[in-house]
């Protein structure tokens, strides 16, 4: 069986409806993930075990578990606990869409903690020392010096993680949310044609992911617009845009290492 354009056209509205859910879930997780991960990052970097141990455990568990199991755990597992099932929280946990957002947010936030930490660690110690010498308070140093720089260093890793989890939303169908993949599956079950709906979904995912990539690259350019032409040339990756996608995605700060690597290669 091959791609059937007539069928693809007929199912387009249903696919776009699914895609709408994919997009809104992605957007919600994006915002919630940032909000959740910032305090956890600070706790993770705190020298006190009281803060950094729970944060490390959070990252270990939610980063190490496949998102699919997290969704099962949130949607089916928590319903078993009486405090959840009979409490006011049931309003949230009875809703598959909310469970999908919660499960993916926990996963995404745990990755973000490591990325933010990598970015903050990459800020040269000399800057912190200089601002201490100038009598700038630690809080102001964080808000105005370390954090903005860390954002710039971590952007590439953040971009890769966001694109990864956007593709990762494809699993929400397992807890009855109709996203793009679930819509394609629905069509397959009705028409017995797997190729057309799934290739169609693949095209739509590809468009979504690449639109996001273009936005990120524009943001990267605008954050680094102060760099003079020479530095900008140095920043340019040696290989294609997708180069080292995973290397950056781990937790490595993109900024300084990229400079070093590029300089070596010249």
């Amino acid at each position, binding site marked *: 069986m091959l791609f059937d354009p007539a069928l693809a056209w007929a199912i387009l509205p249903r696919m776009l409806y699914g895609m709408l859910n994919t997009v809104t879930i992605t957007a919600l997780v994006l915002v919630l993930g940032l909000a959740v991960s910032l305090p956890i990052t600070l706790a993770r970097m705190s020298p006190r075990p009281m803060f950094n141990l729970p944060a490390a455990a959070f990252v270990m568990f939610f980063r190490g578990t496949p998102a699919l199991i997290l969704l099962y755990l949130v949607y089916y597992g928590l319903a078993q606990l009486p405090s959840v099932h009979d409490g006011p929280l049931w309003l949230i946990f009875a809703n598959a869409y909310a469970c999908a957002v919660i499960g993916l947010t926990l996963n995404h936030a745990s990755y973000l903690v490591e990325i933010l930490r990598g970015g903050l660690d990459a800020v040269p110690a000399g800057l912190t020392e200089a601002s201490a010498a100038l009598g700038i308070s630690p809080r102001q140093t964080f808000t105005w010096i370390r954090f903005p720089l860390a954002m710039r260093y971590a952007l590439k890793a953040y971009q890769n993680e966001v694109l990864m989890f956007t593709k990762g939303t494809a699993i929400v169908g397992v807890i009855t949310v109709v996203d793009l993949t679930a819509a394609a599956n629905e069509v397959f079950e009705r028409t017995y044609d797997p190729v057309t709906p799934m290739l169609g979904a693949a095209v739509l995912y590809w468009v979504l992911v690449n639109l996001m990539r273009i936005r990120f690259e524009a943001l990267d350019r605008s954050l680094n617009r102060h760099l003079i032409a020479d530095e900008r040339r140095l920043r340019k990756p040696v290989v294609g845009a997708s*180069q*080292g996608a995973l290397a950056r995605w781990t937790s490595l700060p993109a900024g300084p290492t990229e400079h070093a690597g590029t300089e070596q290669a010249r």
Partner: protein
Amino acid sequence: MLLTDSEIGYFRQLAGGAVITMELAVSGYLLALASGTVVGLLTLSRNRLIQAVWRVYASIIMGVPSLLVIFLFYYGGSSMLEGVIDITPFAAGLSALVVVYTVYVAELVRGAIRNVPRGQFEASAALAIRPMSAWWHVIMPQAVRLALAGLITVWMVVLKDTALVSLAGLNDLVAHAKTAAGASKEPFIFFVTAALFFVVFSAATLRVSARLERRFGRGLAVVKA
């Protein structure tokens, strides 16, 4: 907490599923590593055609969820090859994971080799080291150092992505956990067990990777910023 007989039976099934999960993850990773290295070396070529084909291919694979690739291989493959061969969920899942992660490995290998300083190639040539020896003794050790962190991440991602193959009907750890959760009405414990399996393997990976990084990074001074 005491376990009933039936619960012990479920855990035994989970253990069987865990073996399938590990088989899939290990074979998928090793195959992706091998083919990714070959493809990565091929894409170093300056041939325009190779470059163009590679760009398009990598962009497509990196822009599509791996779950969709697994479905496409399993359902699409079954319908196209009907009567020729029987496609099992394991075979479909394995080939989908290999196809997807070959691209990521290839990008890492290619990036690592490109980032080995050019002087190293030139010095090898100047010292009349034969190209094969130069690749093996000079370039590869340095490229491994650069690619290592990424390759370990790929392993963790592959391990976690095997969970997706349960959605194509593979009876792995996740599928057994779901069955046990539904049948026993005790979903929490079985899903937490499955989650802990992956967490333990990720933690073990981190320990091994720290050792590997020390081994491949020997002779490299650590400079504090």
